[in-house]
């Protein structure tokens, strides 16, 4: 019996104009946007490869270790799944320095590549956005007359004369409509995946297909939720025109109005000024290091007080053959970043300065060790403060968006694609680990206290021996774990709505 019902419903739906239109419009939008997004991805990948190549070259040109500041740079490759959900992939920085004097975070990253930043005036798009707008609309269009229409035409009464439970009727309607909605979803996704695989630049791995599968599953839950919303409205109203109107209203509110309205009403912009005390604290720690350093030099009889330029030029130590001193520092209160380093680059050290060299090496051993300790101390206060300034408001915003299925769908697919905040954080934690590895390597090989740290006359820096940076996107399991809460919420809403509809439908008079 159920099969007959489903068959009838399917036939009813498939033969309609709305089904043809649904398939057509979804295909059109998805294919057009895939092409555009593919091109965009290719451009970003080219920019990434070029930037990575250049950084590699730049580092090889440096002869002494101390000059790795600003030269040891890692780049974040674009995520191929950003075509499905762009998330933060394009927005946040993708070029980050690895240096022992600060711990790299998202907020320290800059952008590589030759983008015209004014083009950010235009909104960006991804495939999930198309589904978000179009599939939800289609689901409501399939649902609005499912019950109200039959009631109006009188066929519902006819069906109910048969000895059949009302729940079965609902179930049959639900299954057949979902099958119909699945057609445009799957066809368009398949087409876009075909486009992706034919492109030479996008390399989708096996687990990427699992992630895409996760996105499809989430889309299914999302579409089903909207279908149930439509069905609920249809069960409650007497007339199709009213049902249609209400469906449209609900769609407008959920998809269009609520997300924008709530984030306009609630302030979620980061406020770095609130944590300026942390910044001052960090600055004080560095000034303390500076004092210790000066103390150290003053106590050293050979290095002694510098001859010219006062104590600020204390890194020269009167080494003959010194080319220039350097000053490396950042002072960005808005991201609570402050550090500075002084030192020297010695070209060829003359013979008369040779006795001083061990003392200078000793000094650098002390200075670099203390620098790293200072960084650890500042990181302890900087990390939670950055979280309060930037991550908390962002999470609050996402939380508020979750009150609409659109927000749930967006965050879940973002998690699947790995373009959510956590996915991006994965990259930066890898960079942090890489920094740690580089520092450990410098300790192990005694590079901080070596002659090559500041002079290039007896042996130069060997960059190829440095630990290599490699970043793997997180496992599918982790993606799934991050997407699961939102998917479960979607599922719960589905179940609740279905139960509500069954209750309404059973109680209602025909």
């Amino acid at each position, binding site marked *: 019996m159920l099969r007959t019902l489903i068959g009838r419903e399917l036939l009813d739906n498939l033969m309609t104009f709305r089904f043809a239109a649904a398939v057509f419009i979804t295909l059109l*939008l998805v294919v057009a946007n895939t092409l555009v997004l593919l091109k965009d991805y290719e451009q970003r990948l080219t920019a990434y490869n070029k930037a990575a190549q250049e950084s590699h070259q730049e580092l090889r040109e440096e002869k002494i270790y101390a000059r790795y500041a600003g030269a040891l740079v890692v780049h974040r490759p674009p995520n191929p799944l950003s075509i499905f959900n762009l998330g933060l992939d394009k927005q946040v920085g993708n070029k980050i320095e690895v240096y022992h004097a600060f711990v790299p975070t998202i907020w320290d990253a800059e952008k590589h*590549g030759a983008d015209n930043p004014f083009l950010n005036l235009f909104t960006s798009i991804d495939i999930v956005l198309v589904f978000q707008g179009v599939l939800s*609309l289609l689901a409501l269009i399939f649902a609005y007359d499912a019950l109200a229409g039959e009631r109006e035409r009188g066929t519902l009464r006819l069906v109910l004369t048969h000895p059949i439970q009302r729940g079965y009727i609902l179930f049959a309607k639900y299954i057949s409509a979902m099958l119909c909605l699945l057609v445009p979803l799957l066809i368009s996704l398949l087409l876009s995946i075909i486009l992706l695989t034919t492109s030479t630049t996008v390399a989708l791995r096996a687990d990427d297909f699992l992630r895409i599968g996760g996105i499809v599953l989430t889309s299914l839950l999302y579409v089903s939720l909207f279908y149930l919303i439509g069905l609920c409205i249809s069960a409650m109203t007497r007339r199709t*025109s009213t049902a249609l109107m*209400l469906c449209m209203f609900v769609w407008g509110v959920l998809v269009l109005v609520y997300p924008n*309205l709530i984030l306009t009403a609630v302030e979620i912009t*980061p406020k770095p000024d609130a944590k300026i005390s942390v910044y001052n604290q960090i600055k004080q720690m560095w000034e303390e290091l500076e004092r210790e350093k000066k103390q150290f030099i003053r106590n050293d009889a050979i290095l002694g007080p510098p001859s010219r330029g006062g104590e600020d030029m204390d890194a020269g130590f009167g080494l003959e053959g010194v080319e220039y001193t350097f000053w490396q520092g950042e002072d960005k209160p*808005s991201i609570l970043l402050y550090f500075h380093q002084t030192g020297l680059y010695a070209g060829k050290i003359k013979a008369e300065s040779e006795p001083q060299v061990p003392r200078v090496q000793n000094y650098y051993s002390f200075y670099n060790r203390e620098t790293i300790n200072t960084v650890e101390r500042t990181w302890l206060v900087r990390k939670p403060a950055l979280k309060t300034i930037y991550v908390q408001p962002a999470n609050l915003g*996402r939380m508020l968006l979750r009150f609409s299925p659109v927000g749930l769908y967006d965050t879940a697919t973002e998690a699947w694609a790995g373009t959510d905040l956590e996915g991006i954080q994965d990259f930066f934690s890898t960079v942090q680990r890489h920094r740690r590895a580089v520092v450990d390597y410098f300790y192990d090989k005694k590079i901080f206290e070596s002659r090559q740290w500041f002079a290039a006359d007896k042996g130069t820096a060997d960059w190829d021996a440095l630990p290599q940076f490699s970043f793997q996107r997180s496992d599918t399991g982790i993606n799934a774990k991050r997407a699961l809460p939102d998917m479960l919420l979607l599922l719960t809403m589905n179940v609740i709505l279905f139960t509500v509809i069954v209750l309404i439908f059973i109680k209602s008079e025909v």
Partner: protein
Amino acid sequence: MWHITKREIYDNLNSLRFALTAVLLLALMVTNAVKHLREQPKRVQRYQDAVTESSDRLTAHADDSLYKLAQYGPGNFYKKPSSLHFCANGGELVLPDTVKVDDPPVFMTDAEGNRLLEGIWSLSYPDANLQNKNVGPNVSQVDWAFIIGYILSLIALWFTFDAFSGEREQGTLRLMLANSIPRHTVLIGKFLGALLSVSIPFALAVLVNLLLISTANTVHLTPEAWGRLGIIFCLALLYTSLFVALGLLVSARVQQSAVSLMILLLTWVTFVVFMPSTLASIASSFSPAMSFDEFWQQRNPIQENLWEKYKEGLWSSELDDWKLRAKSEFYTENAEREERRQEEQLKYRASQVHRARAITSISPATLLQHLMEGFAGTGFERHLQFVENTQRYARQLREFVADTDRADPESLHILAVREGMSQKPISPESVPRFEDTLNLSRDFNTAATELLLLTLFVLVLLSGAYLAFVRVEV
């Protein structure tokens, strides 16, 4: 005809959709007003602080000497926040709000750090903000442009999708046409009826919004701003009539109202939501962006050429007229070239943006967005206008310096060089001050094409609706 219009309005006023529309629009407009009242005072305060600071700089330079003014120029320029910010925020987070005045470049110092060769100030245009520190969700702000562009257009379709098909289903259309009313009268009546029924809740919401904004004493609307608001309201009506006409066109052609609504919604989603972003992406990939490095590489040869050209004059040891003139020309030309390079970069980027904007103009929603930005005094065109204002002022200030110098008999009248210029302090009041102004007639000029295009769309759709309705069988 009035009869039909009236009937339509009465029909709609009593309907559920009218109530829902009114509630929705009110909620949006009130949020918009509250947000504006919360943020505008801060924005104005920030602007005023910045302007005071740069004005103090100018005064300090003028008090010092004319040479100092010629060398350091004015302080940075700031874009005046528009009082109609709530109408269209126009990418406020992306666009920079300042034009910087670069400190004079130092070409050479001696062993003690004394500056031997130092040039003069030049303008530099900051890049758009990359927004790469923001990890929060991206949504569009609820401004009038959003309310009108997305919500009002949807509402217009909501009111018209069953205008003919619904009546045809009920059979009342046949009844109406049985009377001796010409069809075009019916069409115009329906059109006006729908337009008015949409406008009533909209006008109501706008009134509440403006009431909130104008009664608050923290923000202030000038008479000109009210004029602009009037224009914006008319724009909203024009834009709404476009969607009303579209709704009537589809409704006249299609038998069932459900199908009609579906066609309308899908058209709407395509044109209003997706077309702007998709087309902008396509347009921006047409021409490759020129990187900072490339612009930098263009600059270096220029600098070297300049050295070559003026080397002899700059290096001659005795302090004579010829050397001073060489210095003066070197400094001036250097500043000019620096400014020109910056301007070219901005122009190149602006041309990319303009191309993208032109292509996205197929979508009426983008047209409206641009028009709203134009009349609200925000957005990209406004930014270019601000840049132009600063350039005009820079010229004015340089002329002023030259004129003042000419009036000093002790000066050698060789500009941009310390020894060649007047060393007297000048009264800060006599120095021209920068004023960032908006020009309504200019805004009209830049908006003219888009305005005409929008009107054209409306007329085409209306005549389409007429043709469809005249030929349709009832």
